[in-house]
């Protein structure tokens, strides 16, 4: 019931303005689907259904095509995300240096699995493959900030400090 309500609220709150601007700026570009989706996601934090519908209408790409692209690339999200995003790197170097421990520690701390968002939309926890800072393994990116040479205690401290 609560979920249903949020959904309606979200729908009512969908602001076409930002997307309008994005679509205008890409109107004449060939193959601009991915950049449009990227900018739309930047504007809304994820890709709401309304946004995909509007993009489809304006660009002529079918909704199925857009959905196909949006689900193919790991960068696109169809669900609302948390205010804070934690990316734990599980690239090879991080993996051999203990990244899996960081993941389980945070899963326990936050009560969610990797790839999920906490119900209060505070944090999204993600495991990603290689962020290219292997020399500082194991590392994580929290809200765009890189943290290297992590141990469970250090990552816990960082996450507990998030508001």
């Amino acid at each position, binding site marked *: 019931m609560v979920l249903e309500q949020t959904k309606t609220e979200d729908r009512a709150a969908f602001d076409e303005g930002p997307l309008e601007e994005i679509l205008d700026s890409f109107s004449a570009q*060939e*193959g*601009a*689907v*991915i*950049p449009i*989706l*990227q900018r739309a996601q930047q504007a809304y934090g994820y890709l709401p259904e309304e946004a995909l519908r509007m993009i489809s209408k304006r660009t002529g790409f079918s909704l199925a095509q857009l959905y*196909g*692209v949006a689900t*193919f*690339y*790991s*960068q*696109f999200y169809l669900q609302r995300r948390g205010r804070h995003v934690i990316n734990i790197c*599980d*690239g*090879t*170097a*991080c*993996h*051999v*240096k203990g990244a899996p421990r960081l993941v*389980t520690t945070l899963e326990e701390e936050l009560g969610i699995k990797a790839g999920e968002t906490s119900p209060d939309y505070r944090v999204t926890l993600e495991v*990603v*493959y*290689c*962020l*290219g*800072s*292997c*020399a*500082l*393994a194991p*590392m994580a990116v929290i809200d765009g*900030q*890189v*943290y*290297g040479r992590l141990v469970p205690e250090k990552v816990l401290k960082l996450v507990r400090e998030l508001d």
Partner: protein
Amino acid sequence: MTEPIYRANVLVCAGTGCASSGSRSTMAALEAEVQRRGLQNEVRVVETGCRGFCAMGPIVIVYPEGIFYCQVKPEDVEELVEETLVKGRVVSRLVYEVPDTQQAVPLYEQIPFYSKQQRITLRNCGVIDPESIDEYIARGGYEALGKVLQEMTPSQVIDEVKASGLRGRGGAGFLTGLKWQFTAQAAGDIKYVVCNADEGDPGAFMDRSILEGDPHSVIEGMMICGYSVGAHEGYIYCRAEYPLAIKRLHLAIEKAHEYGLMGKDIFGSGFDFELIVKEGAGAFVCGEETALIASVEGRRGEPRPRPPFPANQGLWDRPTNVNNVKSYANVAQIIRNGAEWFSKIGTPKSPGTAIFALTGKVQNTGLIEVPMGITLREIIYDIGGGVPDGKQFKAVQTGGPLGGCLPASGLDLQVDFDSLRAAGAVMGSGGMIVVDEDTCMVEFCKYFLTFATAESCGKCVPCRVGGRRMLELLTRISEGQGTMADIEMIEEIARGMDSDSLCALGQLTPGPVLSALRYFRDEFEAHVLEGRCPAKQCVALTSFYIDPAACKGCGICKRACPVQVIEGDRRMIHIINQDGCIKCGTCQEVCPFDSVIKLSGETIEVPTELIPVGSFGK
């Protein structure tokens, strides 16, 4: 231009590695300190790209002497400026020390990590300010483009690149000049040049370092390529995970336009060229050239069968030359110094240098550039400083999740495209991960397969299904449920994937497993036949015990156990109830007396009831 002549340059590495170690605040502190002492007209503080020695970051180098300072924090800055820039002395506590001998090495070129390297592709990285086109030009930048446009015909350029023997640095090692020739000869008025900067291999970050540290070298190489194949438009497909690289590319393109080095009628030659940066959206398979092209076109990044090759039918079905970042970054120097110069570096069949991201269990992690033909031993021990913490070297994994691993017996192998391939590993894009005795090869293979199956685009069956089945078999083995027939089945699936997959992702997915089976078969067999994980890493095959002779009955493990399966009392020998244990290892970590031991395939005798400390076996 009234820029003062500086008596000293202080180079601060601002690559992603050093930046996350705090180089930005070190840089700010340096600038403030130089200002405070009124030295701003004598000393210049420069933000550079990656120096490669990320483990020691933030790195600061003071020129003209070339004094190399490691892990410089803002609070070290005052002393550094006072001693080195005012009094001309070295701050010994900030100097690099060789880990084993504690010998201090103040000068950059004498540090073992650098002394065996030969920096050609990375020659500007960490030396120039990557946001300044002037510094690139001062180091000979855009000379090659000028030479090409004014003195050479397109076919002469192609001949020169062919004569250099440069092979594609993306991993496959195809002759770059020949690739260019195919595109040049392809029919069509409109052609494209594409740079593959979708560096998705976990454990590789050389492309990022070049783009962040020397973006113009890639741009110049692409323009030379554009001229030789007859293309006027180029695309750089860069991972969105590399925001700094993207920012610097945009800036570099803007500057090149400003200087008349890009755009219409470059150098008055009549040659036009434009460059567009495309951000990837997170799909490993887009590193495959046909998938990359599909992605640039705005579609799902799925590969398609080749032929037709992109040289004939690429971006928007037009002839397209696709090369890796490193390949382009080498081009300008080949033109400037001549094909002969380049072909003399490295080995006859793999000329030039190789860049590796040396990571994992080695002392000195970071980015290195070495001449082809160097041995793995030189890389791992002389440059990398060997395995830390007194552990045993076990294997080195090259070529990322689609590569292979080599055991200690392969350490004297020469590094080049062909010898690595013959040994079951590949050059790949240059990840080099060292693992020690603590890594289980079965688990390691599972890791790579998990990655490869997650990144399989799903278009062709061998890759989509084969990878999954193989992962299931490996999981069974790691849980002690495997049979010898499972190992054979893995090999059979591998053969099918290799011969029948659509693109390199599927063909190479079995690589890590096959090479592990080739060199570490006994380890797989130990899992299957003895239910034992020699590295004690596979959870299902390991158990924790409290050594009754060593337990002091302090109770710390009991309080820390998250599932409360440790029985004990004050001054009593503690016992782990094996049935409920989740094998998290917390008890082992917290025990102050190292009394908790981890075993696989064996057990030890423990008391069956609580008895006082020191009484066991008496």
